[in-house]
């Protein structure tokens, strides 16, 4: 029957085996992510990098004599690695928890996400600098070479070992957490850590060990992966987003769900490769979207209340920093002077990214929704604008509007799916949805995969102004930016914007006042996507290229980084953040592959030391100064009165 539909059993079973192997790795990785999320409420984005550490650790042990010649170190093989490396990675994880991650437990999820993204960039960037993008080969251990013939297919022993060992580890871990005393401590500590501490249990240490254990699982998966996949610095990056999708499908925090979904999705991915290969990279994300529609809590998830504690800058009303009319004029004037001193191209880059960050801030800063997929809108519009201008010969304004229209439509759809959940779930869902757009662009013919759409003509604006003249293009970008900036200011200060802010402060209360908050979120999401699209389309015209980088999740992370550096929920924050980020990138352009490392470090430092951002910190300083002055003038008034008393008494 298989033959009838044109699929040979060898191909089918071969792909199923690959799917099962992938599924085992998905299960082991999502298990770690689910444990860490369930117990620590941290979306461990650095999990992929930790998996990569495991694989590299295995390779290092084999290469010891070559890496450290003259020390007489032995070359340690697979079985040694299996014993040593997961422990080593777990120790690294414990150190990371102690140094960084425990500092963000009590903060908004955004900081945990940004911190782990930063750590991942830092680690993967360093390995990239040292080892380059090329993969290292690692042979199958001697004792597991060969395989068995099963009649319909050939089963290598190593793969059999991975499947058996992986399943034992996954279900063993699940059993420990669900059925033992240690597990009951963990589950209780998730619900009420303070109370568990009063029982004499050292919860901070337990959380550190939990994190180390989850990370150790990633390290173990890395060891087991070394002989199957290429050992390369990127290996974690390519798997982590899929893992997050698996965890969402399984139900966040459900350990059993993570294991079963991991295995199942690996198999489904394998089957898709047989029957419809084009969809094999996106099938998991499409399943995720479907599951969210039908069962918002995931297949095995229980309803969990994700407490959303906003920690945004306290903006004083009437502060000059928040005066939109003043800054609109100031940026207009500053923008006009700028090209006399700097290259217009630098200005255009800043303005595009500033508009992108402002659009992001509208959603994250004013509605409190931690979106992590704005690359989709930015990139979609960049591609559509580029295609309309380059292939269809649209005028620039028409191309740009087409881009914005597509970004708006994509935004409305993604928003509709994503606003069903909050906090970190929301972040993961937007991220996974954006990955669909990314993989679509990797495969679709009109996007030209790695090359992107190049040589986009800037054309003549309204048929009159030649945008190929740099200064004309610059002023067009400036006008579009001012339009976007002004529009956001208007929205935020409208009654609609007030409702958005009330959702950020306390969604339940907004609902009880009779607002259908989901509609407000949907509209805000769509506007934010449209403006992100405006920025993306502009960028495509300015740089005359739309590329995969525009759609990659690092672009989403950039939006978050610019907003955080500048100051979340402030008017000027995203603009200041864009200026800082662009200037850093410009200064670092000569450093080549170190850029990612520095960017990762910026993420980490920003989360640890500059949480309110430049504008937020300045705002606090100004507020404190005002308060001091008020108190001083009060003191002066009260001082005068007793002085009179004293003098009268003395005389």
């Amino acid at each position, binding site marked *: 029957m298989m033959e009838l539909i044109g699929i040979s059993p060898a191909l089918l079973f071969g792909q199923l085996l690959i799917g099962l192997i992938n599924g085992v790795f998905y299960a082991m990785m999502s298990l770690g992510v689910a444990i860490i999320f369930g117990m620590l409420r941290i979306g461990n984005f650095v999990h992929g990098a930790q998996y990569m550490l495991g694989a590299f650790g295995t390779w290092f042990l084999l290469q010891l004599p070559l890496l450290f010649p003259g020390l007489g170190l032995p070359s340690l093989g697979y079985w040694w690695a299996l014993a040593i490396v997961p422990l080593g990675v777990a120790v690294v994880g414990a150190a990371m928890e102690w140094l960084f991650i425990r500092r963000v437990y009590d903060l908004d999820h955004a900081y945990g996400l940004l911190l782990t993204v930063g750590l991942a960039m830092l680690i993967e960037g360093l390995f990239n600098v040292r080892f380059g993008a090329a993969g290292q080969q690692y042979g199958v251990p001697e004792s597991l070479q060969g395989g068995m013939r099963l009649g319909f297919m050939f089963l290598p022993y190593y793969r059999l070992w991975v499947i058996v060992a992986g399943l034992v580890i996954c279900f063993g871990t699940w059993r420990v957490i669900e059925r033992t005393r240690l597990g009951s401590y963990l589950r209780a500590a998730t619900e009420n850590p303070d*109370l568990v501490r*009063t029982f004499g*249990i050292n919860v901070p240490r337990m959380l550190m060990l939990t994190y180390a254990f989850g990370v150790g699982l990633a390290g173990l998966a890395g060891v087991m992966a070394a002989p199957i996949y290429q050992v390369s610095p990127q290996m974690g990056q390519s798997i982590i987003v899929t893992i997050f999708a698996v965890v969402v499908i399984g139900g966040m925090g459900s350990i059993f769900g993570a294991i079963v979904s991991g295995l199942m999705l690996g198999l489904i991915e394998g089957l898709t490769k047989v029957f419809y290969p084009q969809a094999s990279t996106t099938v998991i994300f499409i399943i995720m979207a479907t599951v969210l529609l039908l069962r918002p809590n995931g297949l095995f998830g229980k309803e969990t209340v994700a407490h959303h504690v906003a920690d945004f800058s306290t903006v004083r009303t009437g502060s000059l920093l928040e005066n939109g009319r003043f800054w609109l004029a100031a940026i207009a004037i500053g923008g006009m002077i700028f090209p006399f001193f700097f290259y217009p191209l630098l200005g255009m880059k800043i303005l595009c990214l500033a508009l992108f960050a402002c659009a992001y801030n509208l959603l994250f800063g004013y509605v409190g929704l931690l979106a992590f997929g704005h690359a989709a809108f930015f990139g979609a519009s960049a591609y559509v604008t580029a295609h309309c201008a380059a292939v269809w010969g649209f005028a620039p304004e028409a191309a740009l509007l087409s881009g914005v229209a597509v970004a708006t439509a994509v935004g409305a759809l993604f928003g509709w799916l994503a606003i069903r959940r909050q906090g970190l779930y929301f972040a993961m869902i937007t991220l996974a949805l954006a990955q669909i757009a990314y993989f679509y662009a990797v495969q679709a013919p009109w996007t030209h995969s790695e090359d992107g759409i190049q040589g986009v003509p800037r054309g003549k604006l309204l048929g009159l102004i030649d945008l190929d003249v740099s200064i004309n293009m610059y002023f067009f970008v400036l006008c579009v930016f001012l339009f976007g900036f002004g529009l956001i200011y208007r929205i935020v200060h409208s009654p609609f914007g007030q409702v958005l802010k009330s959702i950020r402060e306390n969604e339940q209360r907004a609902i009880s006042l009779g607002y259908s908050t989901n509609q407000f979120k949907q509209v805000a999401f769509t506007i934010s996507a449209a403006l992100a699209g405006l920025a993306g389309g502009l960028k495509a015209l300015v740089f005359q290229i739309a590329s995969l980088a525009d759609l990659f999740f690092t672009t989403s992370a950039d939006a978050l980084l610019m907003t955080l550096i500048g100051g979340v929920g402030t008017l000027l924050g995203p603009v200041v953040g864009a200026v800082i980020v662009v200037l850093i990138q410009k200064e670092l352009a000569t450093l080549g592959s170190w850029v990612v490392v520095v960017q990762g470090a910026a993420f980490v430092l920003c989360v640890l030391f500059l949480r309110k951002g430049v504008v937020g910190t300045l705002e606090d300083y100004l507020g404190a100064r005002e308060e001091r002055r008020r108190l001083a003038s009060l003191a002066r008034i009260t001082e005068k009165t007793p002085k009179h008393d004293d003098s009268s008494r003395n005389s």
Partner: protein
Amino acid sequence: MTEAIGLTVSDLHAWYGDSKALHGMNFEVRRGEIVTLLGRNGAGKTSTLRAIMGLIRKQTGAIHFGSQNISGRLPEAIAKYGIAYCPEERGIFASLTVAENLVLPPILGKGGMTLHEIYGLFPNLLDRRASPGTRLSGGEQQMLAIARILRTGATLLLLDEPTEGLAPLIVKQIGAVLRSLKDRGLTVLLVEQNFRFASRIADRHYVVENGRVIDTLAAADVADGTDRIEKYLKV
């Protein structure tokens, strides 16, 4: 000497962030006594228990338990001195069964009750030991919250409003349990708003207002002092 003295709190100040909750609490609980902290909502009773347990990190003053000053120690360290805390919201874990909730706190000292004794004291819990913790009725949850800190061998129990929102019959039952704990030699510091309940079981009452003790009433004087206390508690 130190045998007689259980817990002594002297000049305890505590803050939640910038707002001050305790303004110099002074009181003592002798070994084997049941002592109540009475007072209105927001007077600082719960904060006192939380400060003793180390859950409020920003505090000054001294908290002596036996001969040790435990002020500033971490909650997990304070538990090891034999102090156990039962919060007002009871803190039953929804993801754990009744039996798992019951055996969750580890045994830290000698002299704790056995499971057998606990089930004897709270027969309801035995019947419902396999159900999820939060499926119990309010009264049963309160029983469970008290029961689970009896296994640990703690000698001082800090109970925060164990009778809040419970039916009179259950309140009576809890009163009986507290008396039997006293008979076993346990020391209890009880936060209450229900003076009628407290007056029947406690050896001494401290009235708390604005984060400090403003009056003390021994059990012997309860008959004469009831009016005085009720004036304090009146809203």
